[in-house]
């Protein structure tokens, strides 16, 4: 992905982000890009790279959450032949591969603390040593990191090193979630409609009516721009907006009918003894399914537990996912799937 998409949007926040990029792309200073999942952190990193004097040099991406500690270490720094059992060939690390260019460390908040120390050392000294090597090598890489965690919180929990935080955060770029900049939605739809139309045999996407746009801007968009992209692809295939919007709107949207629907469900379940049955009514034997009963019961318990933790954490989803010991993505999915609503304030 050498040519990232441009930054799309007219909201003050996005205009400001573009402005900031133009002012810092030539500095080579360490940058942390933060924002929820799917807001386009990598797009920002690509834009910084494209506008920098390092354009044309390597752009190397490493996802710090995708690899276990040992692998991540050898991925970043490489190893010498014979560094450990199985190291039959010398391997070049991403720091070496990114030399002269950009090293994009995605999900930096998930980097194990020991590796954070090593990264800090590299940033301080500008040198790194592959595993099993006695020599340190100079590195000239522009470090751009991204995270959907609140690193300040992670520092308090002693999961992120404060000194590394300061060294990385020379420049901060925060991208707000899509639901906080709904004026960007029509522009994003325009851009991606054209892009997908040319990718999918010139099938074109129906332009959304103002009613549909209204619904789109009331939706919570837990998956942000990436989710909007997926919605657009589905519209392209199905040729209609309505089915898709009906599919995602409940449980998340802030329109009244949706909220009422969900309240009905909530009051219905506890009032019935047969709460594990759908709609609180015993099913006829034709459609009786233990599997479905199990799923309903499980959903109910999960919904209660997740709602409770979300309430306790003040809807801090990153913290809630930690407490629940599920991934952030899974939590977002569950919130959407179970129709858990954020508090109305």
């Amino acid at each position, binding site marked *: 992905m050498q040519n990232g998409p441009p930054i799309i949007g007219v909201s003050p926040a996005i205009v400001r982000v573009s402005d900031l990029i133009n002012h810092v792309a030539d500095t080579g200073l360490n940058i942390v890009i933060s924002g929820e999942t799917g807001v386009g952190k990598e797009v920002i990193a690509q834009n910084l790279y494209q506008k920098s004097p390092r354009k044309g040099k390597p752009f190397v991406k490493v996802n710090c959450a995708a690899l276990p500690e040992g692998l991540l270490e050898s991925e970043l720094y490489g190893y010498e032949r014979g560094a450990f059992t199985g190291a039959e060939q010398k391997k070049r690390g991403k720091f070496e591969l990114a030399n002269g260019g950009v090293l994009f460390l995605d999900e930096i908040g998930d980097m194990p603390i020991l590796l954070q120390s090593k990264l800090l050392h590299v940033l301080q000294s500008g040198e790194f040593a592959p595993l099993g090597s006695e020599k340190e090598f100079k590195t000239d890489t522009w470090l751009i990191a991204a995270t959907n965690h609140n690193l300040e919180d992670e520092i308090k929990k002693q999961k992120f090193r404060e000194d590394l935080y300061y060294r990385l955060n020379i420049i901060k*770029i925060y991208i707000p979630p899509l639901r906080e900049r709904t004026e960007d939605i029509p522009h994003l739809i325009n851009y991606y409609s054209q892009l997908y139309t040319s990718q999918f045999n010139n099938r074109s996407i129906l332009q959304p009516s103002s009613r549909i746009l209204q619904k789109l801007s009331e939706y919570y968009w837990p998956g942000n721009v990436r989710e909007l992209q997926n919605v657009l692809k589905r519209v392209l295939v199905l040729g209609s907006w309505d089915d898709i919007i009906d599919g995602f709107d409940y449980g998340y949207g802030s329109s009244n009918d949706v909220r009422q629907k969900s309240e009905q469900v909530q009051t219905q379940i506890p009032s019935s003894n047969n709460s594990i049955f759908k709609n609180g009514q015993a099913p006829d034997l034709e459609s009786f399914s233990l599997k479905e009963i199990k799923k309903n019961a499980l959903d109910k318990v999960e919904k209660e537990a997740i709602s409770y933790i979300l309430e306790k954490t003040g809807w801090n989803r990153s913290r809630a996912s930690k407490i629940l010991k599920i991934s952030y993505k899974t939590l977002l999915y569950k919130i959407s799937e179970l129709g858990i609503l954020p508090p109305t304030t």
Partner: protein
Amino acid sequence: MQKKYKILIIDDSEEILNTYKKFFTKKNYSVATASNGLDGLKILQTEPSDFDLIITDIVMPNISGVGIISIVKKKFPEILIIAITGWGEHPEMLASEAAADLVLEKPIDLMELDKRIIDLIQSKTN
């Protein structure tokens, strides 16, 4: 009479900006202010040759004080910079590495700050 020095103050606290601005204006400085690094940088780019000195906070939204110091020292090396760090924060080392001319820790005594500014500017011109 002393020449009127022009300074830029960057801090994300409105209160601090106002206090500094009042104090230094009274002391016969020409004062510009910005509440974050990006806005500070923009002011410098529109009137770069004018400023004698910058006072910047370290921890700020968008471009941090360390970022400002690094960028200014590269693009406008003639401008002096004083970095001010919050109590209990630990990026002083970064500010020095980025070659701030002076790093001070909060709380700041404004009379003292005034003296240090004049010292810095005069030792540079001599």
